[in-house]
């Protein structure tokens, strides 16, 4: 998918001014938050489970090469083929090759963020293979000219039922429906024949289990089961960081993932898929492929952003983010929105292509508090900001201002003088009022708020004045 993260500021402004979007965002934003808060209560010790999850994610990441080799060995032993892709282009080529090898004309897809990273649907279409998205949200986006998702687990978070109704009427040529139940039924009926006729199914993978060479798949709609049960070929596309040790560890992570994502104690369906159909089985794929994707992940291993690789893609950080809640996912300009996206996009798509994103946060740490694998998201965002400064990616005016400040701040006499003039200038600017409506040097800062006016003297001056009489009294 093309990166449009350079324009976050402009797009965020547009999104804030989009009255319809604001209604749609407002309707749903508290639902995930409330459900999660309720769902974590029935775990005996949520914090202990979180800590265990953090540790076992770190366990595989600190020896990732060994765990990947182990996974590959186990998966291969059970009849699957394990392939590797450096980037999105290689993912597309591998999938097209597999499709051609098995004479595939149609592919049903369960949700895969990696396929969004790779722009797989467009590549399949160009190769003459029809991709059909089957997650209801992803399907709605596909029939709207491959619109990008605005949330990693709720792709049409930004749409109303009226929007969906109009899209369905246009695409299905059936009488328009506005009831959500009826719209869902219509999608079911349209997609069912595709499930039964597609020769190949593509899914993502929530976890790869090294002990058994299996992929674990979390879904609610049943489409994940369909695409991995009905077609003769199943392709799993997933990042190399998704490997976990054992089935017991899977149980621990599954206590956290659905609760953090949708506030469910368990997702409706949870499938552990291991190898190809056994002889005599009437369903299940005869061919199973894993495509393990790097796409910028290997470079993060063992480095200062390695903690981000723990991410299990639950979406809790964006659900709880005041910035995401205000602007929605599209403003972020790539596959992953919200705090996790603001960390991943610069690392996957290039720091220079996503200058605004590490700043698209108030660093309030809501995201860090709810993250089920304890990723310190605000720390990582701050580290990315530091990287931007180190690599001279910030605008010259900001760099100059910071250089001047740092020079002055290291010289107490200059600092005292500069602040003395500063407060008097601001005091004059306020003209006797308590606040300053427009700051000449930083007009953006005062666009949405007033700057409080200083009293006329600096802290140092006031402090010195207070100490002076006391010193005299003690004499």
């Amino acid at each position, binding site marked *: 998918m093309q990166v449009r993260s350079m324009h976050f500021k402009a797009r965020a402004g547009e999104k804030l001014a989009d009255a319809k979007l604001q209604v749609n965002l407002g309707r749903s934003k508290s639902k995930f938050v409330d459900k999660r808060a309720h769902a974590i209560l029935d775990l005996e010790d949520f914090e202990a489970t979180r800590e265990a999850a953090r540790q076992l994610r770190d366990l595989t990441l600190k020896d990732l090469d060994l765990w990947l080799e182990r996974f590959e060995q186990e998966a291969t032993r059970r009849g699957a083929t394990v392939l590797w892709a*450096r980037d999105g282009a290689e993912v597309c080529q591998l999938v097209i090759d597999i499709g051609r090898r098995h004479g595939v004309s149609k592919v049903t897809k369960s949700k895969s963020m990696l396929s969004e990273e790779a722009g797989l649907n467009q590549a399949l279409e160009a190769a003459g293979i029809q991709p059909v998205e089957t997650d209801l*949200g992803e399907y709605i986006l596909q029939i709207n000219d491959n619109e990008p998702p605005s949330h990693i687990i709720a792709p049409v978070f930004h749409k109303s039922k009226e929007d969906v109704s109009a899209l369905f009427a246009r695409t299905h040529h059936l009488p328009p429906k506005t009831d959500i139940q009826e719209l*869902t039924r219509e999608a079911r009926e349209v997609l069912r024949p595709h499930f039964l006729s597609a020769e190949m199914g593509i899914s993502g993978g929530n976890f790869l289990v*090294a002990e058994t060479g299996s992929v674990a798949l979390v879904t*609610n709609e049943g489409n994940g089961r369909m695409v991995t049960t009905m077609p003769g070929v199943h392709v799993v596309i997933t990042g190399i960081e998704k490997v976990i040790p054992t089935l017991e560890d899977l149980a621990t992570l599954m206590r956290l993932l659905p609760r953090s994502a949708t506030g469910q104690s368990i997702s409706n369906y949870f499938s*552990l898929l291991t190898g190809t159909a056994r002889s005599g*089985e009437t369903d299940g794929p005869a061919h199973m492929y894993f495509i393990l994707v790097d796409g910028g992940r290997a470079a993060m291993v*063992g480095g200062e952003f390695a903690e981000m690789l723990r991410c299990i893609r639950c979406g809790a950080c964006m659900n709880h983010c005041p910035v995401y809640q205000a602007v929605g996912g599209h403003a972020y300009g790539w596959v992953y929105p919200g705090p996790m996206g603001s960390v991943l996009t610069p690392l996957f798509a290039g720091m220079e292509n996503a200058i605004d994103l590490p700043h698209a946060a108030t660093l309030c740490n809501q995201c860090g508090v709810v993250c089920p694998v304890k990723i310190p998201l605000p720390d990582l965002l701050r580290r990315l900001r530091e990287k931007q400064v180190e690599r001279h990616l910030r605008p010259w005016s900001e760099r100059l201002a910071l250089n001047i400040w740092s020079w002055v701040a290291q010289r107490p006499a200059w600092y005292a003088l500069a602040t003395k003039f500063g407060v008097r200038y601001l005091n004059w600017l306020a003209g006797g009022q308590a606040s300053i409506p427009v700051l000449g040097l930083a007009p953006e800062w005062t666009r949405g708020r007033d700057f409080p006016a200083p009293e006329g003297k600096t802290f140092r001056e006031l402090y010195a004045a207070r100490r002076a009489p006391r010193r005299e009294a003690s004499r």
Partner: protein
Amino acid sequence: MSSREDILGRVRRQLGRTAENAASGRAAMERHIAARAPGPRGILGNDLVGRFREKSAALSSSVEDIADLAQVPAAIARYLDSHGLPPQAVCWPRFAALDWQAAGLRVESRPARGTDLVGISGCFCALAETGTLMLCSGVDTPAALSLLPETHIAIVPAARVVAGMEEAWTLLRRESGELPRAVNFISGPSRTGDIEQTIVLGAHGPYRVHILIVASQ
């Protein structure tokens, strides 16, 4: 260089991999796998079946208790009748010999098709913690049967209700050694909340899940 070598090479460089630390890393890996240590979890108490019943209902499954397997056909006939569903179904081979006819049902033991309305399956076991069914695919336990029909009826022997997923894995390792192609955990009817985060039952899988808990077999 192949993509595999390229990617693994990058990971190894990042981690500072050497022959010595690879050997100790592998040993630690084998120890972790062999230990299969469960994570922190609560204690469920003794009434696992009661907990399973309560949690299943919370997930929008319906639950009925029956005394033995012979009562299954009559119970299913009553359920289908009360929901205005036709007296026809497909079932797993192991239930083919039940006296369906006496209950007025036409039940076939064959792979499910897209047009079948009712599927009758057993389960490998059931999880009390979350009210979840665990089904293993196999020659006599096809996975599509619990997925394609709009109504899924599952027969659960009370003795097969275990505490949680950890116990289910232990049971599976003990009884079958090797994993089946698919282990499907099913927690109520299929659902979606994609449109306006409003939960709707019956997305691509069943609209209804009815569970018959059989006291003795």
